[in-house]
């Protein structure tokens, strides 16, 4: 029983980082970042190369992951999305562009990193025992780091000028424009930070799981589930969604055979969305 709870906490903390990134991008730009899973994957690979292959300190590796993936995010916004959002008459265009970017990243990654699965040795050894349950120190560290990063993001969004501008953009685009905010700059920054969060999540998770060039799609789907449940574009919603998915997985795997878990999660999601389409905390869609 305790093991299930601990599994739930670990999963939720990990997933929250992923969800926050994608919800930030959605909130500011109205774009669902299909490439989120691929960015997560690239973050993991960055840490693999810097930490495991070149032997540099882990925090440096994590920073590299953040910067590289963040720059990819900024690049996408400036080169692709900005133009499409301006000229497109139909909203499908931005979504298909997002799908295209996902395909692009996935294939570039396959070329650059190869097909093998990569992992890194755990950051710290040792296992904690909590009642009947096991909590490897490495996982605890990931949970702690994740929480620190989430807190940092929340503070940034709440108290810094760019952060406030992002919240303003998410709430009311026109009014923000009228306030003289440089929307282009904030959009690029927002996409960059959202992507960076995905990269950080990947960089953290590779220490306790593994990455290969193909995990992008699965991760993106999990991100979608989380924001659909919690409410897209709302930070609290992302965290809620992560908690729901994390615990659903932990409980599900403990009680029922593997793939049934996700079938039930999907069915539950569809039923939930029929009743409450905007998610737990989402704004009513328009």
């Amino acid at each position, binding site marked *: 029983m305790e093991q299930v709870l601990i599994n739930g906490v670990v999963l939720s903390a990990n997933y929250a980082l992923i969800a926050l990134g994608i919800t930030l991008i959605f909130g500011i730009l109205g774009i669902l970042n299909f490439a989120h899973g691929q960015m997560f994957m690239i973050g993991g690979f960055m840490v693999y190369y810097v930490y495991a292959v070149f032997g540099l300190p882990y925090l440096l590796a994590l920073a590299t992951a953040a910067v590289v993936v963040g720059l990819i995010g900024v690049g996408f916004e400036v080169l*692709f999305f900005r133009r499409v959002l301006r000229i497109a008459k139909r909203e499908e*265009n931005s*979504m298909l562009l997002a799908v295209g970017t996902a*395909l*692009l990243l996935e294939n570039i990654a396959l070329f650059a990193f190869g097909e093998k699965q990569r992992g890194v040795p755990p950051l710290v050894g040792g296992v904690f025992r909590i009642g009947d349950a096991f909590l490897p120190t490495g996982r605890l560290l990931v949970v702690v780091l994740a929480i620190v990063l989430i807190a940092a993001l929340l503070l940034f969004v709440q108290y810094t000028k760019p952060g406030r501008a992002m919240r303003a953009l998410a709430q009311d685009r026109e009014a923000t424009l009228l306030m003289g905010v440089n929307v282009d700059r904030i959009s690029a920054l927002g996409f960059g930070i959202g992507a960076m969060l995905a990269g950080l999540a990947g960089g953290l998770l590779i220490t306790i799981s593994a990455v290969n060039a193909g995990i992008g799609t699965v991760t993106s789907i999990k991100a979608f589930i989380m924001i*659909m449940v919690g409410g897209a574009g709302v930070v609290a919603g992302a965290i809620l969604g992560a908690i729901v998915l994390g615990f659903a997985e932990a409980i599900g795997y403990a009680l029922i055979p593997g*793939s*049934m878990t996700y079938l039930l999660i999907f069915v539950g999601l569809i039923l939930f969305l029929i009743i409450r*389409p905007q998610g737990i905390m989402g704004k009513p869609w328009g």
Partner: protein
Amino acid sequence: MPPQRRPAATAELSTLSPLGLTPARAVWIALLVLVALVAIPIALRNQPYFLNVLTNACALAFISLGVWVTFSIGRINIAQGAFAMIGGYTTAILSTRYGLSFWLCLPLSALLAAGIGALIGWPILRLRGVYFAMITLSLTEAVRLAFLNGGEFTQGATGIVNIPRPAGIDDAVAFYLLAVVLLLLGLLAVWRLSTSRIGWVFRSLRLNEELASSIGIDIAKYRVIAFAFSCAVGGAGGAFFAAFLQNIYPASYSVVDSINFMLYCFLGGLEFVLGPVVGAFLLVIGFEVLQGLQEYQSLMYGILMIAVILWLPNGILSLKLRSREASAVDPDVEPVAAPSDTAAGRTGG
């Protein structure tokens, strides 16, 4: 004003105009159909590989027509893979376990897919934009998992194999003709739909649902009709593939396939009925031709998607044709001539 004698040309127009065709267009279409049904099978009768490529393209284009119809009511449908799966399994189970002929399985698959589509569609079509897209994406995954966990009934991961070929269809040419006929029927249906009153209702739904509802259109009913049609086409296409490939697995249709159907519509042009056909043919045949670059195929797919969206956001057909809609209702486009003599401006029956 005294009634004027109608010149001969307009008399011709009056037979074709209900279908929204000019004489020139009608001739083109007849020619294409002739080529597809006669010239190609004769030319390629000893090249089953190429025929299969074309068959594949036709069937994929057919399924994409459904996605096109959901685009026409303003929804992004990423669930077509699920309905192709449902149709495919229906045909697989009915023909392998109960010995039903394919010709019976095909309509049954379409009907079942439509029924399920209507049932699920009724509540979820209230959603729009990204939310509808995401829920349909979840649907594709959920259906895949459902078939994976279907136990004895669906044979789980092993899938169903040795699906019998349809009676009378046993070589590449026959399958090709079947696919072409299906595609032509589908095109006819969609064309008819889009030029009929229902088509205009769909268009009004896409442009402004609230407004349509306020003038008394039962938007819920029409949305479901469109979605059910889309699912029927998906189911029929799935049935075709089940008989063509003679197998079906939960792995047969995934999120990637649903996205591909969307891509074909988009590449061809969402304003044009022929859009999905052009998109499907271009991509399927294009990648056969570029087989030498097989390693880079997926990469090029991604680059292509981005390039098209950036520089050809209205699809390939928008380069040559002005869409009927662009000249008629799109507020961004200046109304051209008064819609009197041009059949393009005339609505169908």
